[in-house]
Protein backbone atom coordinates (compact mmCIF):
# COMPACT_ATOMS: atom_id res chain seq x y z
CA UNK A 1 0.00 0.00 0.00
CA UNK A 2 1.46 3.38 -0.93
CA UNK A 3 1.64 6.09 1.69
CA UNK A 4 -0.53 8.33 -0.47
CA UNK A 5 -3.29 5.75 -0.46
CA UNK A 6 -2.95 5.34 3.29
CA UNK A 7 -3.28 9.09 3.82
CA UNK A 8 -6.33 9.25 1.59
CA UNK A 9 -7.99 6.43 3.53
CA UNK A 10 -7.32 8.14 6.85
CA UNK A 11 -8.66 11.46 5.58
CA UNK A 12 -11.87 9.78 4.51
CA UNK A 13 -12.33 7.68 7.60
CA UNK A 14 -11.29 9.95 10.46
CA UNK A 15 -14.13 12.54 10.29
CA UNK A 16 -16.82 9.86 10.03
CA UNK A 17 -17.37 9.20 13.77
CA UNK A 18 -18.56 12.76 14.39
CA UNK A 19 -20.93 12.88 11.39
CA UNK A 20 -22.17 9.39 12.21
CA UNK A 21 -22.78 10.47 15.79
CA UNK A 22 -25.18 13.17 14.65
CA UNK A 23 -27.18 10.95 12.31
CA UNK A 24 -27.18 7.63 14.17
CA UNK A 25 -26.32 7.99 17.83
CA UNK A 26 -26.59 4.25 18.51
CA UNK A 27 -23.95 3.48 15.92
CA UNK A 28 -21.42 5.42 17.91
CA UNK A 29 -21.98 3.29 21.01
CA UNK A 30 -21.17 0.13 19.10
CA UNK A 31 -17.76 -0.31 20.62
CA UNK A 32 -14.72 -1.43 18.73
CA UNK A 33 -14.97 -4.74 20.53
CA UNK A 34 -18.57 -5.28 19.46
CA UNK A 35 -17.83 -4.43 15.85
CA UNK A 36 -14.93 -6.86 15.86
CA UNK A 37 -17.21 -9.50 17.33
CA UNK A 38 -19.64 -9.03 14.46
CA UNK A 39 -16.71 -9.26 12.06
CA UNK A 40 -15.69 -12.58 13.60
CA UNK A 41 -19.04 -14.11 12.70
CA UNK A 42 -18.88 -12.64 9.20
CA UNK A 43 -15.42 -14.09 8.63
CA UNK A 44 -16.10 -17.55 10.00
CA UNK A 45 -19.74 -17.78 8.89
CA UNK A 46 -19.18 -19.29 5.43
CA UNK A 47 -17.11 -22.07 6.88
CA UNK A 48 -19.70 -22.75 9.60
CA UNK A 49 -22.46 -23.00 6.98
CA UNK A 50 -20.35 -25.35 4.90
CA UNK A 51 -19.59 -27.41 7.96
CA UNK A 52 -23.28 -27.81 8.77
CA UNK A 53 -24.30 -28.74 5.22
CA UNK A 54 -21.32 -30.64 3.90
CA UNK A 55 -19.87 -32.23 7.02
CA UNK A 56 -22.33 -32.35 9.93
CA UNK A 57 -25.29 -33.50 7.86
CA UNK A 58 -23.39 -36.27 5.99
CA UNK A 59 -21.77 -37.26 9.27
CA UNK A 60 -25.16 -37.61 10.95
CA UNK A 61 -26.38 -39.55 7.95
CA UNK A 62 -23.43 -41.94 8.28
CA UNK A 63 -24.18 -42.32 12.00
CA UNK A 64 -27.78 -43.21 11.20
CA UNK A 65 -26.60 -45.68 8.53
CA UNK A 66 -24.25 -47.30 11.04
CA UNK A 67 -27.24 -48.46 13.11
CA UNK A 68 -28.90 -50.08 10.10
CA UNK A 69 -28.12 -52.90 7.69
CA UNK A 70 -28.42 -50.53 4.71
CA UNK A 71 -26.91 -51.49 1.37
CA UNK A 72 -27.25 -47.89 0.19
CA UNK A 73 -29.56 -48.75 -2.66
CA UNK A 74 -32.73 -50.56 -1.59
CA UNK A 75 -35.24 -49.12 0.87
CA UNK A 76 -35.45 -52.33 2.82
CA UNK A 77 -32.81 -51.42 5.41
CA UNK A 78 -33.80 -51.86 9.02
CA UNK A 79 -32.50 -50.82 12.41
CA UNK A 80 -29.96 -53.25 13.88
CA UNK A 81 -28.88 -51.35 16.97
CA UNK A 82 -25.24 -51.75 17.93
CA UNK A 83 -24.74 -54.95 15.94
CA UNK A 84 -22.42 -53.29 13.42
CA UNK A 85 -20.24 -51.82 16.15
CA UNK A 86 -20.11 -55.16 17.96
CA UNK A 87 -18.90 -56.71 14.70
CA UNK A 88 -16.20 -54.05 14.19
CA UNK A 89 -14.70 -54.87 17.59
CA UNK A 90 -14.93 -58.64 17.21
CA UNK A 91 -14.24 -59.31 13.53
CA UNK A 92 -10.62 -60.59 13.35
CA UNK A 93 -10.12 -59.29 9.79
CA UNK A 94 -11.23 -55.78 10.72
CA UNK A 95 -9.04 -55.76 13.83
CA UNK A 96 -6.07 -57.05 11.83
CA UNK A 97 -6.49 -54.28 9.27
CA UNK A 98 -6.63 -51.75 12.09
CA UNK A 99 -3.43 -53.16 13.61
CA UNK A 100 -1.69 -53.08 10.22
CA UNK A 101 -2.64 -49.43 9.79
CA UNK A 102 -1.40 -48.58 13.29
CA UNK A 103 1.98 -50.24 12.65
CA UNK A 104 2.36 -48.44 9.33
CA UNK A 105 1.50 -45.12 11.02
CA UNK A 106 3.94 -45.86 13.85
CA UNK A 107 6.71 -46.43 11.31
CA UNK A 108 6.14 -43.76 8.69
CA UNK A 109 5.10 -40.74 10.78
CA UNK A 110 8.20 -40.60 13.06
CA UNK A 111 10.42 -41.58 10.13
CA UNK A 112 9.01 -38.80 7.93
CA UNK A 113 9.34 -36.16 10.64
CA UNK A 114 12.90 -37.15 11.48
CA UNK A 115 13.98 -37.36 7.84
CA UNK A 116 12.16 -34.12 7.00
CA UNK A 117 13.85 -32.30 9.87
CA UNK A 118 17.30 -33.58 8.87
CA UNK A 119 16.72 -32.50 5.27
CA UNK A 120 15.47 -29.10 6.44
CA UNK A 121 18.58 -28.56 8.55
CA UNK A 122 20.79 -29.63 5.63
CA UNK A 123 19.19 -27.27 3.11
CA UNK A 124 19.22 -24.44 5.66
CA UNK A 125 23.04 -24.48 5.79
CA UNK A 126 24.81 -21.49 4.28
CA UNK A 127 25.94 -23.27 1.14
CA UNK A 128 25.83 -22.35 -2.52
CA UNK A 129 22.80 -23.46 -4.59
CA UNK A 130 20.81 -24.38 -1.51
CA UNK A 131 17.68 -23.00 -3.17
CA UNK A 132 18.16 -25.56 -5.93
CA UNK A 133 18.58 -28.37 -3.41
CA UNK A 134 15.41 -27.29 -1.61
CA UNK A 135 13.41 -27.19 -4.80
CA UNK A 136 14.61 -30.53 -6.13
CA UNK A 137 14.24 -32.38 -2.83
CA UNK A 138 10.70 -31.03 -2.54
CA UNK A 139 9.80 -31.91 -6.11
CA UNK A 140 8.65 -35.52 -5.43
CA UNK A 141 6.16 -34.20 -2.86
CA UNK A 142 4.45 -32.23 -5.62
CA UNK A 143 3.82 -35.35 -7.71
CA UNK A 144 0.10 -36.28 -7.57
CA UNK A 145 -0.60 -39.53 -5.66
CA UNK A 146 -1.72 -41.41 -8.76
CA UNK A 147 1.43 -40.30 -10.63
CA UNK A 148 3.69 -41.34 -7.75
CA UNK A 149 1.89 -44.68 -7.39
CA UNK A 150 2.22 -45.40 -11.13
CA UNK A 151 5.93 -44.49 -11.01
CA UNK A 152 6.59 -46.89 -8.14
CA UNK A 153 4.53 -49.60 -9.77
CA UNK A 154 6.86 -49.26 -12.77
CA UNK A 155 10.03 -49.28 -10.63
CA UNK A 156 8.88 -52.36 -8.71
CA UNK A 157 7.35 -54.14 -11.68
CA UNK A 158 8.36 -57.79 -11.62
CA UNK A 159 9.45 -58.00 -15.26
CA UNK A 160 10.41 -54.48 -16.36
CA UNK A 161 11.18 -52.69 -13.07
CA UNK A 162 14.45 -51.08 -12.01
CA UNK A 163 14.35 -52.68 -8.55
CA UNK A 164 14.67 -56.17 -9.99
CA UNK A 165 17.23 -54.84 -12.45
CA UNK A 166 19.44 -53.87 -9.51
CA UNK A 167 18.89 -57.29 -7.89
CA UNK A 168 19.82 -58.90 -11.20
CA UNK A 169 23.13 -56.99 -11.21
CA UNK A 170 23.79 -58.45 -7.74
CA UNK A 171 22.97 -61.93 -8.99
CA UNK A 172 19.70 -62.17 -7.04
CA UNK A 173 16.51 -63.47 -8.60
CA UNK A 174 13.68 -61.02 -9.24
CA UNK A 175 11.03 -60.45 -6.57
CA UNK A 176 7.30 -59.85 -6.99
CA UNK A 177 7.51 -56.58 -5.10
CA UNK A 178 3.86 -55.63 -5.42
CA UNK A 179 2.61 -58.79 -3.72
CA UNK A 180 2.92 -60.19 -0.19
CA UNK A 181 5.04 -59.78 1.84
CA UNK A 182 7.03 -57.12 -0.03
CA UNK A 183 4.20 -54.72 -0.92
CA UNK A 184 4.38 -53.07 2.51
CA UNK A 185 7.99 -52.02 1.88
CA UNK A 186 7.08 -50.56 -1.49
CA UNK A 187 4.41 -48.53 0.28
CA UNK A 188 6.85 -47.25 2.92
CA UNK A 189 9.38 -46.26 0.24
CA UNK A 190 6.61 -44.55 -1.74
CA UNK A 191 5.53 -42.63 1.39
CA UNK A 192 9.08 -41.54 2.20
CA UNK A 193 9.53 -40.26 -1.35
CA UNK A 194 7.13 -37.44 -0.43
CA UNK A 195 9.04 -36.41 2.70
CA UNK A 196 9.75 -33.02 1.08
CA UNK A 197 6.40 -31.91 2.48
CA UNK A 198 7.71 -32.29 6.01
CA UNK A 199 11.04 -30.75 5.02
CA UNK A 200 9.44 -27.59 3.65
CA UNK A 201 7.28 -26.97 6.72
CA UNK A 202 10.20 -27.61 9.09
CA UNK A 203 12.38 -25.33 6.97
CA UNK A 204 9.82 -22.55 7.28
CA UNK A 205 9.94 -23.07 11.05
CA UNK A 206 13.74 -22.97 11.05
CA UNK A 207 13.77 -19.70 9.15
CA UNK A 208 11.32 -18.19 11.60
CA UNK A 209 13.85 -18.56 14.43
CA UNK A 210 15.40 -15.14 15.11
CA UNK A 211 19.00 -15.19 13.94
CA UNK A 212 19.95 -12.93 16.88
CA UNK A 213 19.12 -15.74 19.31
CA UNK A 214 21.47 -18.18 17.64
CA UNK A 215 24.19 -15.54 17.34
CA UNK A 216 23.83 -14.59 21.00
CA UNK A 217 24.15 -18.26 21.95
CA UNK A 218 27.30 -18.58 19.83
CA UNK A 219 28.80 -15.49 21.44
CA UNK A 220 28.06 -17.04 24.83
CA UNK A 221 30.06 -20.10 23.79
CA UNK A 222 27.28 -22.57 22.96
CA UNK A 223 28.21 -25.35 20.55
CA UNK A 224 26.08 -25.75 17.42
CA UNK A 225 24.61 -28.93 18.93
CA UNK A 226 23.69 -27.04 22.11
CA UNK A 227 22.03 -24.22 20.27
CA UNK A 228 20.14 -26.77 18.16
CA UNK A 229 18.74 -28.63 21.19
CA UNK A 230 18.26 -25.58 23.44
CA UNK A 231 17.03 -22.97 20.96
CA UNK A 232 16.11 -24.48 17.60
CA UNK A 233 14.16 -27.53 18.77
CA UNK A 234 12.04 -25.73 21.43
CA UNK A 235 11.17 -22.95 18.97
CA UNK A 236 10.43 -25.56 16.32
CA UNK A 237 8.25 -27.71 18.58
CA UNK A 238 4.90 -26.17 17.52
CA UNK A 239 5.79 -26.91 13.90
CA UNK A 240 6.81 -30.48 14.71
CA UNK A 241 3.70 -31.00 16.81
CA UNK A 242 1.48 -29.76 13.98
CA UNK A 243 3.12 -32.27 11.67
CA UNK A 244 2.78 -35.17 14.11
CA UNK A 245 -0.95 -34.50 14.44
CA UNK A 246 -1.68 -34.07 10.74
CA UNK A 247 0.67 -36.92 9.83
CA UNK A 248 -1.07 -39.42 12.10
CA UNK A 249 -4.53 -38.33 10.98
CA UNK A 250 -3.63 -38.59 7.30
CA UNK A 251 -1.93 -41.97 7.66
CA UNK A 252 -4.68 -43.62 9.70
CA UNK A 253 -7.16 -42.89 6.90
CA UNK A 254 -4.74 -43.70 4.07
CA UNK A 255 -6.03 -45.67 1.13
CA UNK A 256 -2.69 -45.40 -0.71
CA UNK A 257 -2.43 -49.21 -1.02
CA UNK A 258 -5.34 -49.08 -3.44
CA UNK A 259 -3.32 -46.97 -5.87
CA UNK A 260 -0.46 -49.46 -6.12
CA UNK A 261 -2.83 -52.44 -6.30
CA UNK A 262 -3.23 -54.51 -9.42
CA UNK A 263 -6.68 -53.09 -10.11
CA UNK A 264 -6.80 -49.57 -8.66
CA UNK A 265 -10.54 -48.88 -8.73
CA UNK A 266 -12.98 -48.64 -5.83
CA UNK A 267 -14.38 -52.01 -6.86
CA UNK A 268 -10.91 -53.53 -7.22
CA UNK A 269 -10.02 -53.39 -3.51
CA UNK A 270 -9.83 -57.16 -3.39
CA UNK A 271 -6.63 -56.95 -5.47
CA UNK A 272 -4.83 -55.18 -2.56
CA UNK A 273 -2.25 -57.59 -1.09
CA UNK A 274 -2.81 -58.79 2.47
CA UNK A 275 0.19 -56.92 3.93
CA UNK A 276 -1.21 -53.61 2.67
CA UNK A 277 -4.81 -54.37 3.57
CA UNK A 278 -5.35 -51.24 5.68
CA UNK A 279 -8.43 -50.30 7.67
CA UNK A 280 -9.56 -47.89 4.97
CA UNK A 281 -9.10 -50.56 2.32
CA UNK A 282 -11.42 -52.73 4.40
CA UNK A 283 -13.93 -49.85 4.49
CA UNK A 284 -13.76 -49.60 0.70
CA UNK A 285 -14.25 -53.32 0.40
CA UNK A 286 -17.33 -53.17 2.64
CA UNK A 287 -18.75 -50.25 0.67
CA UNK A 288 -17.93 -51.12 -2.90
CA UNK A 289 -17.31 -54.85 -3.02
CA UNK A 290 -19.80 -56.05 -0.37
CA UNK A 291 -22.31 -53.18 -0.43
CA UNK A 292 -22.48 -53.19 3.39
CA UNK A 293 -23.11 -49.47 3.86
CA UNK A 294 -24.27 -49.89 7.45
CA UNK A 295 -21.23 -51.86 8.59
CA UNK A 296 -18.82 -49.62 6.65
CA UNK A 297 -20.38 -46.52 8.24
CA UNK A 298 -19.85 -48.05 11.68
CA UNK A 299 -16.22 -48.70 10.74
CA UNK A 300 -15.83 -45.05 9.75
CA UNK A 301 -17.29 -43.88 13.04
CA UNK A 302 -14.96 -46.14 14.98
CA UNK A 303 -11.99 -44.72 13.06
CA UNK A 304 -13.26 -41.22 13.71
CA UNK A 305 -13.45 -41.97 17.45
CA UNK A 306 -9.93 -43.42 17.44
CA UNK A 307 -8.60 -40.33 15.66
CA UNK A 308 -10.29 -38.02 18.17
CA UNK A 309 -8.85 -39.99 21.11
CA UNK A 310 -5.33 -40.04 19.67
CA UNK A 311 -5.49 -36.32 18.95
CA UNK A 312 -6.77 -35.42 22.42
CA UNK A 313 -3.95 -37.47 23.87
CA UNK A 314 -1.41 -35.66 21.70
CA UNK A 315 -2.73 -32.26 22.72
CA UNK A 316 -2.52 -33.28 26.37
CA UNK A 317 1.10 -34.31 25.92
CA UNK A 318 1.83 -31.16 23.93
CA UNK A 319 0.99 -28.90 26.88
CA UNK A 320 4.31 -29.82 28.45
CA UNK A 321 6.32 -30.60 25.32
CA UNK A 322 5.43 -27.76 22.97
CA UNK A 323 6.78 -24.28 23.43
CA UNK A 324 4.72 -21.45 21.95
CA UNK A 325 6.86 -18.36 21.63
CA UNK A 326 4.13 -15.91 20.63
CA UNK A 327 0.52 -16.15 21.67
CA UNK A 328 -1.66 -13.42 20.21
CA UNK A 329 -3.82 -13.11 23.35
CA UNK A 330 -0.92 -12.69 25.76
CA UNK A 331 1.53 -10.92 23.48
CA UNK A 332 1.82 -8.02 25.91
CA UNK A 333 3.25 -10.25 28.62
CA UNK A 334 5.87 -11.73 26.36
CA UNK A 335 7.82 -8.99 24.61
CA UNK A 336 9.55 -10.34 21.54
CA UNK A 337 12.92 -8.92 22.51
CA UNK A 338 15.95 -10.96 23.32
CA UNK A 339 17.80 -8.33 25.34
CA UNK A 340 17.76 -10.06 28.69
CA UNK A 341 17.46 -13.63 27.43
Amino acid at each position, binding site marked *: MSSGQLLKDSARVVPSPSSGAAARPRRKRLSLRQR*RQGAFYAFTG*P*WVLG*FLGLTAYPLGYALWLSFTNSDGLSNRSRFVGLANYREVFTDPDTLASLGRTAVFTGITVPLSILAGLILAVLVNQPIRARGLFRTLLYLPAVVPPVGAALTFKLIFDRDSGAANGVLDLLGINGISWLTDPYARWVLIVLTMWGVGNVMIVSLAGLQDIPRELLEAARVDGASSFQSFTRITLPLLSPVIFFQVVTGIIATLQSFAPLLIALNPTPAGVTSVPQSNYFY*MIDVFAQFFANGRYGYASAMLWVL*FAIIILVTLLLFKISKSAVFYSVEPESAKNKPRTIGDA
Partner: protein
Amino acid sequence: MVFARRSAIYMLLVALLALFLSPFGWLAVTALKDASELRVLPIHWWPHDPNPDNFAGALTTFDYLGYARNSLTIATLYAVLVTLASAWAGFGFARLNAPGKRAIFGVLMSTMMMPTIITLIPTYLMFSKLHLVNTYMPWVLWGLCGAPYLIFLFRQFFSNMPKELEEAAIVDGCGTFRIFLRIFLPQSWPVIATSMILSFSWTWGDYIGPALFLDDAHTTLAVKLAGGYVNAHGEPMPNLVASGAVMYVVPVLVLFLIMQRGFVSGIATSGLK
Protein backbone atom coordinates in the same frame (compact mmCIF):
# COMPACT_ATOMS: atom_id res chain seq x y z
CA MET B 1 37.39 -27.07 8.86
CA VAL B 2 34.53 -25.03 7.43
CA PHE B 3 35.53 -26.18 3.94
CA ALA B 4 35.56 -29.85 4.96
CA ARG B 5 32.17 -29.51 6.64
CA ARG B 6 30.65 -27.82 3.60
CA SER B 7 32.07 -30.44 1.26
CA ALA B 8 30.56 -33.19 3.37
CA ILE B 9 27.17 -31.45 3.30
CA TYR B 10 27.45 -31.07 -0.47
CA MET B 11 28.25 -34.72 -1.02
CA LEU B 12 25.40 -35.80 1.25
CA LEU B 13 22.95 -33.51 -0.53
CA VAL B 14 24.04 -34.64 -3.98
CA ALA B 15 23.63 -38.28 -2.95
CA LEU B 16 20.18 -37.58 -1.52
CA LEU B 17 19.24 -35.68 -4.64
CA ALA B 18 20.24 -38.61 -6.85
CA LEU B 19 18.11 -40.89 -4.70
CA PHE B 20 15.08 -38.59 -4.73
CA LEU B 21 15.22 -37.85 -8.44
CA SER B 22 15.91 -41.38 -9.67
CA PRO B 23 12.19 -42.33 -9.85
CA PHE B 24 11.68 -39.50 -12.34
CA GLY B 25 14.55 -40.91 -14.36
CA TRP B 26 13.05 -44.38 -14.45
CA LEU B 27 9.67 -42.94 -15.45
CA ALA B 28 11.29 -41.12 -18.38
CA VAL B 29 13.33 -44.17 -19.43
CA THR B 30 10.28 -46.43 -19.35
CA ALA B 31 8.23 -43.86 -21.26
CA LEU B 32 10.71 -44.01 -24.15
CA LYS B 33 11.16 -47.78 -24.31
CA ASP B 34 9.75 -49.84 -27.12
CA ALA B 35 7.40 -52.62 -25.98
CA SER B 36 10.03 -55.19 -27.06
CA GLU B 37 12.52 -53.72 -24.56
CA LEU B 38 10.32 -54.14 -21.49
CA ARG B 39 10.76 -57.77 -20.59
CA VAL B 40 14.43 -58.38 -21.33
CA LEU B 41 17.18 -59.57 -19.00
CA PRO B 42 19.56 -58.05 -18.18
CA ILE B 43 17.36 -55.00 -17.97
CA HIS B 44 17.93 -52.04 -20.30
CA TRP B 45 18.91 -49.04 -18.19
CA TRP B 46 18.60 -46.81 -21.20
CA PRO B 47 16.18 -47.17 -24.14
CA HIS B 48 18.26 -48.68 -26.97
CA ASP B 49 15.76 -47.58 -29.56
CA PRO B 50 13.82 -44.59 -28.10
CA ASN B 51 10.22 -44.76 -29.21
CA PRO B 52 8.41 -41.41 -28.92
CA ASP B 53 5.29 -43.04 -30.43
CA ASN B 54 4.44 -44.10 -26.87
CA PHE B 55 3.25 -40.57 -26.17
CA ALA B 56 0.94 -40.58 -29.17
CA GLY B 57 -0.30 -43.97 -28.05
CA ALA B 58 -0.93 -42.71 -24.53
CA LEU B 59 -2.84 -39.71 -25.89
CA THR B 60 -5.11 -41.74 -28.16
CA THR B 61 -5.79 -44.91 -26.15
CA PHE B 62 -8.51 -42.78 -24.53
CA ASP B 63 -9.42 -39.10 -24.90
CA TYR B 64 -6.42 -38.01 -22.83
CA LEU B 65 -6.75 -34.28 -23.52
CA GLY B 66 -10.46 -34.29 -22.78
CA TYR B 67 -9.86 -35.82 -19.36
CA ALA B 68 -6.96 -33.42 -18.78
CA ARG B 69 -9.37 -30.55 -19.48
CA ASN B 70 -11.79 -31.93 -16.88
CA SER B 71 -8.98 -32.12 -14.32
CA LEU B 72 -7.78 -28.62 -15.11
CA THR B 73 -11.26 -27.11 -14.80
CA ILE B 74 -11.99 -28.73 -11.45
CA ALA B 75 -8.53 -28.02 -10.01
CA THR B 76 -8.47 -24.32 -11.00
CA LEU B 77 -12.03 -23.71 -9.87
CA TYR B 78 -11.41 -25.31 -6.50
CA ALA B 79 -7.95 -23.81 -5.88
CA VAL B 80 -9.06 -20.20 -6.39
CA LEU B 81 -12.26 -20.50 -4.38
CA VAL B 82 -10.80 -22.46 -1.48
CA THR B 83 -7.77 -20.19 -1.09
CA LEU B 84 -9.83 -17.02 -0.80
CA ALA B 85 -12.39 -18.65 1.47
CA SER B 86 -9.71 -20.14 3.71
CA ALA B 87 -7.78 -16.88 4.07
CA TRP B 88 -11.08 -15.21 4.95
CA ALA B 89 -11.92 -17.72 7.69
CA GLY B 90 -8.31 -18.03 8.86
CA PHE B 91 -8.18 -14.28 9.49
CA GLY B 92 -11.32 -14.50 11.63
CA PHE B 93 -9.87 -17.26 13.78
CA ALA B 94 -6.48 -15.57 14.12
CA ARG B 95 -7.30 -11.93 14.80
CA LEU B 96 -10.91 -11.60 15.91
CA ASN B 97 -12.70 -12.58 19.07
CA ALA B 98 -16.31 -13.26 19.89
CA PRO B 99 -18.35 -15.52 22.15
CA GLY B 100 -18.28 -19.07 20.84
CA LYS B 101 -14.90 -18.73 19.16
CA ARG B 102 -13.32 -21.52 21.17
CA ALA B 103 -16.17 -23.89 20.35
CA ILE B 104 -16.14 -23.05 16.64
CA PHE B 105 -12.38 -23.43 16.50
CA GLY B 106 -12.65 -26.77 18.27
CA VAL B 107 -15.12 -27.90 15.63
CA LEU B 108 -12.73 -26.70 12.90
CA MET B 109 -9.89 -28.72 14.41
CA SER B 110 -11.97 -31.86 14.68
CA THR B 111 -13.09 -31.42 11.08
CA MET B 112 -9.44 -31.44 10.11
CA MET B 113 -9.19 -34.81 11.82
CA MET B 114 -12.21 -36.19 10.05
CA PRO B 115 -11.63 -39.18 7.82
CA THR B 116 -12.63 -37.57 4.52
CA ILE B 117 -14.38 -40.68 3.35
CA ILE B 118 -16.75 -40.64 6.31
CA THR B 119 -18.48 -37.62 4.79
CA LEU B 120 -17.70 -38.43 1.17
CA ILE B 121 -20.04 -41.36 0.67
CA PRO B 122 -23.05 -39.86 2.52
CA THR B 123 -22.32 -36.61 0.66
CA TYR B 124 -22.46 -38.59 -2.55
CA LEU B 125 -25.91 -39.93 -1.64
CA MET B 126 -27.05 -36.42 -0.71
CA PHE B 127 -25.70 -34.85 -3.90
CA SER B 128 -27.21 -37.51 -6.12
CA LYS B 129 -30.64 -36.67 -4.66
CA LEU B 130 -29.95 -33.00 -5.47
CA HIS B 131 -28.79 -33.96 -9.00
CA LEU B 132 -25.34 -32.47 -8.39
CA VAL B 133 -23.51 -35.68 -9.25
CA ASN B 134 -21.66 -35.59 -12.60
CA THR B 135 -21.39 -31.80 -12.34
CA TYR B 136 -18.58 -29.71 -10.86
CA MET B 137 -20.90 -28.14 -8.26
CA PRO B 138 -19.51 -30.30 -5.41
CA TRP B 139 -16.09 -28.69 -5.96
CA VAL B 140 -17.60 -25.19 -6.08
CA LEU B 141 -19.43 -25.79 -2.79
CA TRP B 142 -16.39 -27.35 -1.11
CA GLY B 143 -14.28 -24.41 -2.33
CA LEU B 144 -16.63 -21.71 -1.06
CA CYS B 145 -16.52 -23.12 2.46
CA GLY B 146 -12.74 -23.23 2.73
CA ALA B 147 -10.68 -26.24 3.73
CA PRO B 148 -9.91 -26.78 7.45
CA TYR B 149 -6.24 -27.50 6.79
CA LEU B 150 -5.80 -24.30 4.78
CA ILE B 151 -7.84 -22.27 7.26
CA PHE B 152 -5.51 -23.57 9.96
CA LEU B 153 -2.47 -22.68 7.82
CA PHE B 154 -3.71 -19.11 7.30
CA ARG B 155 -4.71 -18.86 10.96
CA GLN B 156 -1.20 -19.87 12.06
CA PHE B 157 0.34 -17.34 9.70
CA PHE B 158 -1.99 -14.49 10.67
CA SER B 159 -1.57 -15.28 14.40
CA ASN B 160 2.16 -14.77 14.14
CA MET B 161 1.85 -11.35 12.54
CA PRO B 162 2.67 -8.52 14.95
CA LYS B 163 -0.23 -6.89 16.74
CA GLU B 164 1.28 -3.47 15.99
CA LEU B 165 0.27 -3.79 12.32
CA GLU B 166 -3.36 -4.11 13.26
CA GLU B 167 -3.31 -1.56 16.07
CA ALA B 168 -1.84 1.09 13.81
CA ALA B 169 -4.55 0.43 11.24
CA ILE B 170 -7.31 0.58 13.87
CA VAL B 171 -5.97 3.92 15.15
CA ASP B 172 -6.09 5.12 11.54
CA GLY B 173 -9.77 4.14 11.46
CA CYS B 174 -9.38 1.15 9.20
CA GLY B 175 -12.32 -1.30 9.27
CA THR B 176 -11.82 -5.02 9.82
CA PHE B 177 -12.55 -5.93 6.21
CA ARG B 178 -10.02 -3.39 5.00
CA ILE B 179 -7.42 -4.54 7.52
CA PHE B 180 -7.82 -8.03 6.12
CA LEU B 181 -7.82 -7.02 2.47
CA ARG B 182 -5.14 -4.33 2.53
CA ILE B 183 -2.77 -5.40 5.29
CA PHE B 184 -3.07 -9.08 6.10
CA LEU B 185 -3.90 -10.59 2.71
CA PRO B 186 -1.01 -8.90 0.82
CA GLN B 187 1.39 -10.01 3.56
CA SER B 188 0.23 -13.57 3.25
CA TRP B 189 1.11 -14.14 -0.39
CA PRO B 190 3.53 -16.96 0.50
CA VAL B 191 0.63 -18.75 2.20
CA ILE B 192 -1.62 -17.92 -0.74
CA ALA B 193 0.94 -19.48 -3.08
CA THR B 194 1.20 -22.50 -0.78
CA SER B 195 -2.56 -22.79 -0.61
CA MET B 196 -3.01 -22.48 -4.39
CA ILE B 197 -0.33 -25.07 -5.09
CA LEU B 198 -1.64 -27.44 -2.42
CA SER B 199 -5.28 -27.19 -3.35
CA PHE B 200 -4.55 -27.36 -7.07
CA SER B 201 -2.40 -30.44 -6.71
CA TRP B 202 -4.88 -32.07 -4.30
CA THR B 203 -7.64 -31.71 -6.83
CA TRP B 204 -5.49 -32.49 -9.87
CA GLY B 205 -4.24 -35.56 -8.01
CA ASP B 206 -7.45 -36.46 -6.19
CA TYR B 207 -8.54 -39.92 -7.03
CA ILE B 208 -11.40 -40.89 -4.77
CA GLY B 209 -13.49 -37.70 -5.17
CA PRO B 210 -13.92 -37.90 -8.93
CA ALA B 211 -14.04 -41.71 -8.79
CA LEU B 212 -17.18 -41.39 -6.67
CA PHE B 213 -18.83 -38.20 -7.92
CA LEU B 214 -18.17 -38.29 -11.66
CA ASP B 215 -19.05 -40.87 -14.29
CA ASP B 216 -16.66 -41.97 -17.03
CA ALA B 217 -17.57 -39.04 -19.29
CA HIS B 218 -16.96 -36.35 -16.65
CA THR B 219 -14.15 -37.89 -14.63
CA THR B 220 -10.59 -36.64 -14.28
CA LEU B 221 -7.27 -37.73 -15.72
CA ALA B 222 -6.16 -39.17 -12.35
CA VAL B 223 -9.03 -41.67 -12.29
CA LYS B 224 -8.56 -42.56 -15.95
CA LEU B 225 -4.79 -43.02 -15.54
CA ALA B 226 -5.02 -45.08 -12.34
CA GLY B 227 -6.60 -47.95 -14.24
CA GLY B 228 -3.56 -47.70 -16.46
CA TYR B 229 -3.22 -48.75 -20.03
CA VAL B 230 -3.99 -52.41 -20.53
CA ASN B 231 -3.66 -54.51 -23.66
CA ALA B 232 -6.25 -56.87 -25.09
CA HIS B 233 -5.29 -59.50 -22.50
CA GLY B 234 -5.86 -57.09 -19.62
CA GLU B 235 -2.12 -56.78 -18.92
CA PRO B 236 -0.72 -53.30 -18.22
CA MET B 237 1.51 -51.75 -20.88
CA PRO B 238 4.32 -50.14 -18.83
CA ASN B 239 5.65 -47.88 -21.58
CA LEU B 240 2.21 -46.33 -22.21
CA VAL B 241 1.55 -46.06 -18.47
CA ALA B 242 4.87 -44.22 -18.14
CA SER B 243 4.31 -41.80 -21.00
CA GLY B 244 0.76 -41.12 -19.83
CA ALA B 245 2.08 -40.47 -16.31
CA VAL B 246 4.86 -38.19 -17.61
CA MET B 247 2.33 -35.96 -19.37
CA TYR B 248 0.18 -35.95 -16.23
CA VAL B 249 2.97 -35.16 -13.75
CA VAL B 250 5.14 -32.71 -15.72
CA PRO B 251 2.55 -29.87 -15.84
CA VAL B 252 2.29 -30.00 -12.03
CA LEU B 253 6.07 -29.86 -11.64
CA VAL B 254 6.31 -26.96 -14.10
CA LEU B 255 3.56 -25.07 -12.29
CA PHE B 256 5.38 -25.58 -9.02
CA LEU B 257 8.72 -24.46 -10.47
CA ILE B 258 7.14 -21.29 -11.84
CA MET B 259 5.28 -20.46 -8.64
CA GLN B 260 7.89 -21.52 -6.11
CA ARG B 261 9.83 -18.23 -6.27
CA GLY B 262 9.56 -16.98 -2.73
CA PHE B 263 7.41 -19.96 -1.81
CA VAL B 264 10.22 -21.76 -0.01
CA SER B 265 12.07 -18.87 1.60
CA GLY B 266 9.09 -16.60 2.17
CA ILE B 267 6.72 -19.06 3.78
CA ALA B 268 7.25 -17.73 7.29
CA THR B 269 8.27 -14.11 6.82
CA SER B 270 6.25 -11.83 9.03
CA GLY B 271 5.18 -8.24 8.63
CA LEU B 272 7.87 -6.51 10.66
CA LYS B 273 11.51 -7.22 10.02
